[in-house]
């Protein structure tokens, strides 16, 4: 088992990949067989893929606050006249799709949470054909993300109620960035840098859901979290490094999370949730 990114990086050199290290740890800690572990992860992949397809086709949330915007992005991409770039926009579209499905109480795979489920599914489904990833490589992509996610979860957290969105969409984007680096052929050290770069920019992000619903601003934070994972991965692959070591960045995330007041930790009382429009919407939805 690894408890820090430093240990993860060091131990991964004894295995063919970070994914194989993660599987070895899983077999050590549970009574499951290798086949069962891979099958469980393949089932997660299947649900992630389905939720992307369902959302891109167009869905509406129970409250009507969100929905239909993955479809808008799909049309925009198809029109071929964009600013940023096709792979990033596809990751954004797919992330929106998953979170729109989540908001309508549809079936999703939490990565690491439901409120941040769009990021990992979004980037994986945007790059898998471009990078020619086989089914096994896509499953490995998820094990890799899980390995980096475990370290963040144990040293900071993954719940917005505990440490704000910086720990929720922040951890999702960081682990997605790490998997992207390795899937693109980067080193585990570069993956570690991508985690640090991502978390540094997410630092301090509050959790302020309008009306307490996982819709606004969650859907769009997932979208931008996915785009950031892609850009962080590119930055790390270009050789950019993090001046502050990744484990120290994670510790900073934890400390900032502790310092966030309760009103900015998923209580629906501060930030965007406290704006006049949000207060009105809450009244309209719940009476």
């Amino acid at each position, binding site marked *: 088992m690894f408890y820090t990114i430093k240990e993860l990086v060091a131990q991964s050199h004894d295995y063919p990949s970070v994914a194989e290290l993660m599987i070895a740890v*899983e077999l050590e800690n549970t009574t499951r067989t290798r086949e069962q572990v891979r099958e469980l992860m393949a089932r997660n992949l299947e649900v992630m893929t389905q939720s992307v397809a369902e959302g891109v086709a167009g869905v509406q949330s129970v409250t009507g606050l969100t929905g239909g915007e993955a479809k808008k992005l799909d049309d925009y991409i198809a029109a071929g006249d964009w600013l940023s770039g096709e792979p990033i926009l596809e990751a954004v579209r797919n992330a929106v799709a998953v979170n729109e499905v989540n908001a309508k109480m549809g079936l999703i795979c939490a990565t690491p949470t439901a409120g941040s489920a769009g990021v990992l599914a979004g980037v994986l489904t945007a790059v898998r054909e471009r990078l020619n990833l086989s089914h096994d490589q896509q499953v490995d992509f998820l094990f890799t993300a899980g390995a980096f996610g475990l370290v963040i979860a144990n040293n900071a957290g993954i719940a917005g109620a505990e440490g704000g969105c910086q720990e929720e969409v922040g951890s999702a984007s960081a682990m997605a960035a790490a998997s992207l680096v390795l899937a693109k052929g980067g080193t585990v050290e570069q993956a570690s840098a991508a985690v640090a770069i991502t978390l540094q920019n997410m630092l301090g992000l509050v959790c302020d859901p309008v009306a307490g619903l*996982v819709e606004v601003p969650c859907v769009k934070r997932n979208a931008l979290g996915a785009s950031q994972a892609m850009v962080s991965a590119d930055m790390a692959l270009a050789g950019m490094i993090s001046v502050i070591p990744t484990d120290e960045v994670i510790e900073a995330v934890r400390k900032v999370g502790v310092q966030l007041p309760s009103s900015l930790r998923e209580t629906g009382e501060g930030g965007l949730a406290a704006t006049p429009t949000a207060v009105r919407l809450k009244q309209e939805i719940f009476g």
Partner: protein
Amino acid sequence: MPEVRFHSVFDIIGPVMVGPSSSHTAGASRIGRVVRNIFGEAPARIDVYLYESFAKTYRGHGTDVAIIGGLLGMAPDDPHLRDSLRLAHEAGIKVTFIPKSDKVDHPNSARIVLQKGDHKLSVLGESIGGGNIRITELNGFKISLSMGTPTYITIHDDVPGMIAAVTKIFSDSGINIGTMTVTREAKGEHAIMIIEVDGYQADILARLKAIPHMVNVTYFE
């Protein structure tokens, strides 16, 4: 480093679940399901006390629906989860939600009190993120039960010799017991054991159930 709370890759990638929130929906339903398993039968009355983030956002996240779904035995990916309040009502179960303003150890906390006649159980559960949960109090006793560790929960008549009979089955099978909590129900004739072990063998559950005076045994991982 802080306490290690997450052990498995599937704590991070997964669960597959009905939205919208892993902590407020999936975790909440898992707490309900564990409590139902400890209780061992369908309750006639359910009182749910909600704290902090749970108290403030439970309706938007479907926490109420999820806890009751779990108490009816549903898993987080059960498509019937959203109908749980209606199903409980149809089953004649009296359900009450009580949002509290008290401070507790974790912002996503719920105290679930189940009753059926003299049989009563009170459990405090925490949803710690990503659908992962912890049970921290049982009938007023502090405990620490987290999913992800192989755990047996026994409910049995409160008679002498039960602990010895149960531990013998584990020692005969060569399975080490990590932690063990023994408690009585608040009012009633039953006692409860929560046993975290280092290994799993398929036949243990049946052997535990076969012990005289055993009422119910459940296994979690």
